[in-house]
């Protein structure tokens, strides 16, 4: 398995240049340009049109760039984002092998069109739905581009609510299953062990540190976050001192 040093993946809406600037000024390992979750439906086209400029901002700051594509407009998103500077696509709400294989084929076509090396763009699958989890093994094995699996915002998508203890229903089960499955397939598991009141990756620095440390303890190797203030606690949770 490849050793991963990209611990912090900072997700930022692609239609917000100021937020992208702030993200680029952070020490995040990866800037995850979002075309879906943080972008209003009415601004999706604008976000796609802004993508090349956003990628440019990130590259200037020597950041690794991933792009999160939407499940409903994935073809347009893929055509907008394929370029040498984008290392990976994050596939939100991955559910079917057919979808991943279609994505793979479109990526190959775009790579050929742009004279990029075949399969140079990798994929991260966010398993956020019950169906995605049911077919997780087949999804993870469906393309050699897939290098990581994540729960994404499964707590919100599947409406998993907090227990009185603060643990979110089903989350420990889904996390540990994803980790075992990822390792079986030789893939990275991306995530953190969030507890209520933190939902949707948004948390205080202290809670982010705790979630990342718990996540590391059960087998995650990187964390997605949405605020630049979360980056330092994530790096700290993965440091030697956090052991």
């Amino acid at each position, binding site marked *: 398995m490849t050793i991963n040093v990209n611990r912090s993946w900072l997700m930022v809406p692609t239609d917000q240049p100021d937020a992208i600037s702030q993200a680029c000024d952070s020490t995040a390992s990866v800037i995850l340009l979002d075309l879906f979750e943080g972008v209003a439906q009415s601004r999706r086209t604008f976000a796609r049109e802004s993508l090349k400029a956003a990628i440019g901002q990130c590259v200037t700051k020597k950041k690794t760039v991933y792009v999160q594509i939407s499940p409903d407009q994935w073809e347009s998103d893929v055509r907008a984002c394929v370029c040498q500077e984008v290392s990976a696509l994050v596939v939100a709400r991955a559910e079917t092998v057919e979808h991943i294989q279609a994505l793979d084929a479109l990526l190959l076509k775009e790579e050929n069109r742009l004279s990029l090396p075949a399969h140079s763009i990798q994929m991260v699958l966010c398993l956020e739905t019950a169906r995605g989890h049911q077919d997780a093994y087949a999804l993870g094995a469906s393309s050699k581009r897939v290098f990581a699996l994540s729960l994404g915002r499964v707590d919100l998508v599947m409406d998993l609510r907090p227990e009185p203890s603060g643990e979110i229903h089903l989350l420990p089960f889904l996390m*540990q299953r994803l980790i075992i499955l990822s390792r079986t397939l030789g893939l990275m598991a991306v995530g953190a*062990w969030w507890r209520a009141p933190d939902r949707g990756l948004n948390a205080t620095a202290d809670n982010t540190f705790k979630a990342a440390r718990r996540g590391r*303890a059960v087998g995650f190797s990187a964390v997605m976050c949405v605020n630049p203030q979360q980056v330092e606690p994530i790096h700290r949770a993965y440091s030697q001192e*956090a052991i």
Partner: protein
Amino acid sequence: MTLLVRRSNLCIPINDRARVQRAGFHHADAVTLDLSATAVVPPTLQEDIQAAAKGGAEIFVRLSPLQWEAQMASLPVAALTGVMLSKVESVEQLQQAEKTIATLEKKQGLDKGHLQWILGIDSARGVWHIRSILAACDRLTQIFLDEKSLATDLELVCLAELDPFDYARGRLVVETTAASVSLVGMSYPLSVTPVEEAFTFIHENANKARNLGLKGVVCPFESWVAPVNQAFTPTPELVEWNRRVRIAFAEGVAAGTAAVPLDGKMIDVPVDEWAIVVLEMAQACEQRDEQKRLALLSSGVAAV
């Protein structure tokens, strides 16, 4: 079905001669002579098996994941109950081992199936593929969930307060139970950082392991054996309660009902069924302990 009473399996490195010679005197239900760190089978193995068997324990050998085929060819099969094989991850691997062991049994004039398997599951692949592994052979009696090695495979930096194996253990409990195979191991975090501790501490952790669905413990230390045996043996109070359950339920059935009260609790079909299991297990444990006591007496050596 005969109940398998293998509460404690004392695992001792074969090179630790002093411990091997005393292995039979600790009342373990089974003793595993661990060859996993050696390349070859030592010439003293037959003698070691005899020493370890003095207390009536079943004798297993744990083979090296890398040298198991060569080691297996040199085993005195007739003297063994079975073989523990670690790092089992796939059906193909198990089928190869199965073929080798069957050939060996034939060569030594033994019935097919003489040797039992205990398979060590210590990787994500093993956990994920457990159902096909369980279905791949008939001689499998136990699965050993080796959480220490699993933590290494997953590159975990464990926190004592956070059990990372809920899913892995849960999956194995369900799958092994469905396949009528016993799952053994130890509760977390003692499973990852095994230490010699006071009787009560080990007993408490073994109880926890039993409550998690495990049927026994692979003991790295002699001091674990007694508390583990006790934790996996129904207590006299539990036996007495379940005797009363059976009587109360039978009276209820005779009176035309399958749900009767006893000391404020409802006794119905599942409670009665569980009572049968508890009483049978208590009896099987008693018989096993008597077998071991007699074996120790006949060996002419006092227990430690």
